[in-house]
């Protein structure tokens, strides 16, 4: 029953990876490449590339794609559900605690410290993404020469238009789809 093994192994990855999608990559690699030899390292790098390129959370993408490569569609379902199930149980537990004890002064204090931290992390992600979208690299600060070489006016145009649309409260989904289609249109014009 390969899919049961997949479910169990990915549940372990889900339980032990802390810090988001990228953090799960070494754990998934250890499991599917080093321990079980389901995939070669080069196939695993494909998994990583595809997970980053395709929409959706990176860790879930990787689990789905790795599961698919190992055992077809049932494998991808098993790996994905396995990956998400520890999160689900833990989050429900914490959400319960939160609903009951979230009003206690000390816990409010901790949250008051964490809220600005989340804002800071969203800002950091935003700047990395600006750099990636406009200059094709997450490196920052860039040297002027690299900035000039990598600068993409088409992407800049899409980003600015999307930002204007976002300020005018256009539906998020339309902005994403529109940006994608606009990218195709600009690219085809040459």
């Amino acid at each position, binding site marked *: 029953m390969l899919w049961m093994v997949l479910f169990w192994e990915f549940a372990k990855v889900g*339980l032990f990876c*802390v*810090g*988001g*999608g990228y953090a799960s990559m070494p754990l998934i690699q250890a499991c599917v490449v080093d321990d079980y030899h389901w995939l070669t390292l080069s196939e695993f790098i*494909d998994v990583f590339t*595809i997970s980053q390129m*395709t*929409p*959706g*959370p990176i*860790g*879930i*993408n990787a689990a789905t*794609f790795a599961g*698919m490569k190992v055992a077809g569609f049932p494998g*991808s*379902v098993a790996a*994905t559900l396995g*990956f998400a199930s520890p999160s*689900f149980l*833990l*989050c429900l537990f*914490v*959400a*319960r605690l*939160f*609903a*009951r004890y979230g009003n206690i002064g*000390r816990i409010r*204090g901790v*949250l008051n*410290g*964490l*809220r*600005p*931290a*989340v804002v*800071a*992390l*969203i*800002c*950091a*992600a*935003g700047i990395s*993404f600006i750099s990636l979208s406009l200059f094709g690299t997450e490196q920052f600060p860039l040297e002027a020469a690299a900035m000039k070489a990598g600068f993409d006016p088409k992407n800049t145009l*899409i980003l600015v238009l*999307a930002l204007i*649309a*976002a*300020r005018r409260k256009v539906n*998020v*989904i339309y*902005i*994403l789809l529109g940006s*994608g*289609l*606009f*990218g*195709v249109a600009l690219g085809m014009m040459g």
Partner: protein
Amino acid sequence: MPDKDLPERGSHFYRALFCSTFLISAFTVGGGFVIIPLLKAKYVDEYGWLEDEETLNLVAVAQSMPGVVAVNAAILLGYRMAGIPGALTALFATILPPLITLSVISQAYDFFIQSPLVRLLLKGMQCGATALIVNVAVDLVYKQCKKKLALPLAILVGTFAANFFFGVNLMLLVVIDGILGLLLLCGPEYD
């Protein structure tokens, strides 16, 4: 529902929750910290299902739990909005799109990886997602500044610098900021 403050939600709510979360997961290239601002834009700014503050609280919790941050955030926000049915709805709406997309892609891997059209589409969507994060980030920073509280602002700037310029580990930052909050920010003016 065991928790009294969870509001009653009709079938219309679940449909809207599922559809909006599904579409965000289906069209957002770039992972957790891209998806979270978009969920916030939908749940808080468009539908008004949650408040700014509690969304940030829950995202902070999601960030410090094991697993995929976007999935944790969807579960926690879904639970806050409508209990276990809400959490399940948000969870499946987040993981179904990758399951479908990658099933299709793995069948046509070579075409997908080489197709210039696909690249253009993904790159365009990435630019759109970038604009959306920037938009959410600007709003959040503006609101934080408007409160004119020195300590939280210092935490914001310090965390940003430590993460962005010095590459300090995210988990470590979250723990440090939590402790700072516990020691310094328990007063009612910071709520």
